[in-house]
């Protein structure tokens, strides 16, 4: 079976080939050829991933595929190689599976766009880079994928580059990500210094032999966490994701919801053995995730852009995943990555369908009542909304519940406020239900607030767009059943992932307590949905209008002022420094040194020309004076004697 698994190493190559074909020949291809080629390449990757998945049945370890020796420096040997195990195959299935649906959807969404082939080239390149990220067997190769997805994210956010705002948003995303990348790099240096290798499997094997809770492991964990906060848009680097919505909507679905932003979760799960030995770092991870989840959910309430609400919701949901992996429940984090990939991609694609129907309108205040005109989109969006809210029997319910009980019972978080984390995440679950209800109801329910002109053109999207919606909707229900609560049912995904992730002790609860926790989370979700129903349907949004100008609403609208704070701290100070340097350059270097030096030289030259009078007798007189001076000096000092 090993050979079947090894073939999966070709998956990134396929996507890369697709990207190159579209990059070099895409412009001469007629639509929909670029999209079809790109989709076929991703489909090939999906088939390879499925084969690898089948091949890995019954194998607890993974398969290492070493392609070539990447580089050697002293005792450091880095191979360009892939590690295909249960964890990476799960991610590959998500990336290529959801990626394939989004590629197909894009054929319809990007129809008629000038940059059609450029779009598919970059989207394929993203898939290749993301596959390298999850499959890499060593940190440097993972970092290549890590940077690759960052570059593709930057390119695709600024895809419509003619509008100045979009490339600016891309740049912001890239720069903020670079801050996290510094953490990743430093973590790699420290990993090599500590373990003497950069092979991920070797590090995972060596970590349990280290001193539990030692400072160096904690530091490594915190540095990788910094890298993860950049890519996964967690506190304090979450500011780039809402702006990243400037990209085409399928890009937001694939990169900024389903796959790339989960890279941080994957990273922490991948090196779970390090975190399992560093409770301080793990606790920090969990707290970062929980606080991010809460703050982003709070910020989602006052947004009016259809995609920005989803962006904050993504930050919040990734916060849940980070909290889960921080608690040491690595399979839970990946499980939520899986379910979230389905319902969040579905939410974004539904939003894209709405934006498409309204001719580019993104303000939910100018929507409403669209469910009657767009039946398929409306119904799939409803399923996704209920799934993300955590309504029982939908995917989000199972994964969110697993996260809640994981943080509550984690042995790794003992003494790091596991109870407080649980309460924060529980409250956030209620908030999620409320703001997602607002999102759904604002677009599809209630009275229509669409402009009369735009209303005429409202139409259901073509089948190439609605089919992916339907498949994702099915997944938003079905994938949850992979992770039924273990205490009562067989939990497939836990049994599948546990051999590939680090062991962490969890307190076992009585099944009564387990049911109580589930009941609590259901109750909170019900309260959240009821509040949403009451505020937006029964009271027609009156309570919202009442607090519209309050500090609370303002804080939510400004996402607690992180952007404003960073503007003051970094942008303003940077501008101050660059302004100072510009003044220094202009007034001191240019006007002072350059102009002064030139002027001085000119002045000396002018003075020197005075000597060159052109009168031979004047020269002769000067010579005589010089000779007399020399003679006088010689006579007085006695040099000649």
């Amino acid at each position, binding site marked *: 079976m090993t050979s079947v698994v090894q073939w999966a190493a070709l998956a990134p190559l396929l996507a890369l080939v697709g990207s190159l074909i579209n990059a070099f020949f895409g412009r001469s291809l007629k639509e929909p050829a670029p999209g079809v080629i790109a989709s076929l390449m991703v489909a090939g990757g999906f088939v390879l991933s499925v084969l690898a998945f089948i091949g890995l049945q019954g194998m607890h370890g993974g398969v290492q595929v070493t392609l070539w020796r990447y580089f050697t420096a002293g005792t450091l040997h880095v191979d360009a190689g892939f590690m295909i195990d249960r964890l990476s195959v799960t991610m590959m299935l998500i990336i290529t599976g959801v990626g394939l649906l989004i590629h197909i959807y894009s054929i319809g969404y990007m129809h008629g766009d000038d940059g059609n082939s450029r779009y598919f080239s970059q989207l394929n390149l993203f898939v290749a880079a993301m596959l390298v990220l999850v499959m890499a067997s060593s940190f440097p190769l993972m970092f290549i994928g890590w940077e690759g997805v960052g570059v593709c994210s930057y390119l695709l956010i600024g895809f419509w580059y003619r509008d100045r705002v979009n490339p600016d948003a891309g740049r912001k995303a890239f720069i903020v990500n670079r801050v996290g990348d510094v953490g990743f790099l430093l973590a790699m240096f420290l990993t090599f210094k500590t373990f003497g290798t950069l092979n991920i499997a070797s590090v995972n094997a060596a970590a349990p032999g280290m001193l539990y809770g030692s400072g160096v492991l904690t530091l490594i964990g915190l540095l990788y966490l910094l890298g993860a906060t950049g890519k996964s848009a967690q506190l304090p680097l979450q500011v780039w994701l809402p702006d990243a919505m400037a990209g085409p909507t399928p890009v937001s679905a694939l990169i900024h919801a389903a796959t790339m932003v989960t890279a941080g979760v994957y990273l922490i799960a991948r090196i779970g053995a390090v975190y399992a030995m560093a409770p301080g770092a793990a606790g920090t991870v969990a707290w970062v995730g929980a606080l991010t989840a809460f703050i982003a959910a709070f910020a989602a309430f006052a947004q009016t852009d259809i995609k920005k609400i989803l962006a904050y919701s993504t930050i919040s949901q990734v916060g849940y995943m980070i909290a889960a992996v921080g608690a040491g429940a690595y399979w839970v984090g990946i499980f939520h990555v899986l379910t979230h990939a389905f319902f969040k991609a579905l939410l974004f694609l539904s939003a894209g369908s709405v934006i498409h129907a309204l001719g580019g309108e993104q303000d939910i205040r100018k929507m409403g009542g669209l469910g009657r005109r767009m039946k398929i989109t409306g119904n799939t969006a409803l399923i996704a909304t209920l799934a993300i809210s955590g309504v029982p029997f939908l995917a989000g319910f199972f994964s969110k519940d697993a996260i809640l009980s994981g943080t509550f019972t984690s042995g790794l978080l003992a003494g790091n406020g596991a109870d407080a984390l649980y309460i924060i995440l529980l409250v956030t679950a209620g908030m999620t239900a409320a703001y997602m209800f607002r999102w759904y109801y604002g677009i599809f329910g209630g009275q229509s607030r669409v402009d009369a002109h735009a209303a005429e053109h409202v139409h259901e999207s073509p089948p190439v767009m609605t089919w992916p919606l339907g498949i994702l909707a099915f997944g938003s229900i079905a994938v949850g059943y992979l992770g039924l609560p273990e205490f009562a049912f067989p939990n497939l995904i836990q049994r599948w992932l546990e051999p590939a992730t680090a062991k962490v002790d969890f307190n076992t609860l009585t099944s009564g307590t387990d049911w109580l926790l589930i009941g609590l989370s259901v109750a909170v979700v019900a309260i959240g949905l009821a509040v949403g129903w009451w505020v937006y349907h029964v009271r027609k949004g009156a309570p919202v209008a009442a607090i519209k100008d309050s500090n609370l609403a303002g804080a939510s609208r400004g996402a607690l002022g992180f952007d404003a704070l960073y503007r003051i701290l970094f942008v303003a100070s940077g501008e101050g420094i660059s302004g100072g340097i510009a003044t220094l350059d202009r007034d001191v270097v240019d006007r002072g040194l350059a102009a002064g030096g030139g002027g001085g030289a000119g002045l000396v030259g002018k003075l020197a020309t005075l000597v060159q*009078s*052109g009168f031979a007798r004047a020269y002769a007189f000067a010579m*005589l004076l010089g000779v007399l001076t020399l003679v006088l000096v010689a006579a007085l000092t006695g040099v000649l004697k």
Partner: protein
Amino acid sequence: MVPTPYYVALSALLLTIGAMGVLTRRSAIMVFLSVELMLNAANLAIVAYARQWSATGVEQALSGQAAVFIILAIAAAEVAVGLGILVAIFRNRVSTDVDELSEVRS
């Protein structure tokens, strides 16, 4: 025998007269003539000291006499070149006033 200081005094006098001539005369011929005067003032001093040295019996004293011969020979050649230049200048400008020769001034 005339004492050496007399020769040196005469040499200094000739040199001064020559220098004044170079500085004050405007005709290139006269300047040239004054330069020759200064040159020979120097020659006179050299020969005078050479004679004094040979009287004390130093063998190298004759090198002073020899140097003067070389200087005279070179001076003759230099006069030929210098006068040639002067003739050429005169042909061009019908004047040898050195104050007017200032074309290369900036």
